[in-house]
């Protein structure tokens, strides 16, 4: 066992883990943060995307021990403490950017990272290109793309609480 200490959604967490524990297992099974999903477990689908020090990463392809001393934000860490949805979450609801919802946490974490890197005014081609690592099997992506464009704009309008990052 190896001891890891990291910040998860603004909270300091210390735990003993087997080195082979994936970050996604650590979050779901250890921290009961089950909003981060496992779709493929082979680094392809993006259902497991979380932020590591603010950058989108696939939690199924990162070891928990590699996150020692670092900051992780999951979908549970996006909404304000009172439960007010993050503008990107609100946009997904408003634009019906989901059907079954399985890919949604990963889509939203990827979208927030995209806004961090590319700003608030995103054209459709950019959004579609940036979603290459996130697979949705029900929507055909159309409303997801719309939701992200709207969410990005909304993030500019509202001075967002810096998620738990």
């Amino acid at each position, binding site marked *: 066992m*190896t001891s890891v200490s990291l910040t998860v959604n603004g909270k300091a967490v210390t735990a003993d883990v087997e080195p*082979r524990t994936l970050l996604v297992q650590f979050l779901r099974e250890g921290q009961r943060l089950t909003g981060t999903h496992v779709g493929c477990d*082979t*680094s392809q689908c993006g259902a497991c995307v979380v932020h590591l020090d603010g950058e*989108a*990463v696939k939690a199924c392809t*990162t*070891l928990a021990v590699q996150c020692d001393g670092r900051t992780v934000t999951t979908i549970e860490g996006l909404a304000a403490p009172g439960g007010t949805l993050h503008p990107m979450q609100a946009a997904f609801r408003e634009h019906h950017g989901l059907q079954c919802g399985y890919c949604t946490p990963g889509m939203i974490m990827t979208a927030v*990272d995209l806004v961090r890197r590319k700003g608030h005014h995103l054209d459709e081609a950019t959004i579609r290109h940036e979603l*290459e690592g996130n697979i949705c099997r029900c929507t055909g992506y159309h409303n997801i793309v719309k939701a992200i464009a709207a969410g990005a704009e909304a993030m500019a309008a509202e001075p967002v609480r810096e998620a738990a990052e």
Partner: protein
Amino acid sequence: MYAFDYHRPTSVKEAVGLLTDGAKIVAGGHTLLPTMKQRLAAPESLIDLGRIPDLVGIERTPRSLTIAAMTTHGAVAESAEVKEAIPALAELAALIGDPAVRHRGTIGGSVANNDPAADYPAACLALGATILTNKRKLSSEEFFLGLFETALEEGEIVTGVSFPIPHKAAYEKFRNPASRYALVGVFVAKRPSDIRVAVTGSGSNGVFRWTEAEDALAKRFSPKSLEGMSASPDGLNSDLHADAAYRAHLIGVMARRAVQKAADR
């Protein structure tokens, strides 16, 4: 994934000391961890290079750009220095996988792995990069030996890659739409001394130089010089994604596009 011991050294020297039989380096883990999940690799211990400050960063001199081994694809893609010195390299990095893969995968891991469909080996070979290790400096020709095979010896760690700055360069990649790896990728570099064309994604022995195209471009650096040319299908891969004849054709198409893009710079 089988159990393993985990070490997190803070210097290259300490990492080398830990690299005993049965130990493996983990960089971004975006090749190694999927392989370990499939139990195709089962190292007894992992040496994580993620906490060695010397292994991260990009250094520009008047004639070269040196990228430390643990620098991520995302950092290369977004680096103002890389975009200015060798824009083709930043563009290549931006085409690797997807944003989350680029936040973890590293240049050192990519060259050490020498996947026949990986992008960086083509840039290294075309630009005439030097691979830096804790022991020596190797030319790309000396370093890349074949499928997933490099000149790295036991106890040897890639510490960085040094790219001479070309006059012009461009990379064109025909991506496998599912994996986003290169089905065919062609990197063209007009260097002070010569012109080089390197091809990835195709060779059954990994990355290679297309010398016929280099000779044709030496006369005139224009896509016209490559008109009607395609590579020889001998020694190219045939798989469910593309057969050798199709790859040979695509190499010609990608090379012409890359030359056009470089010439326009």
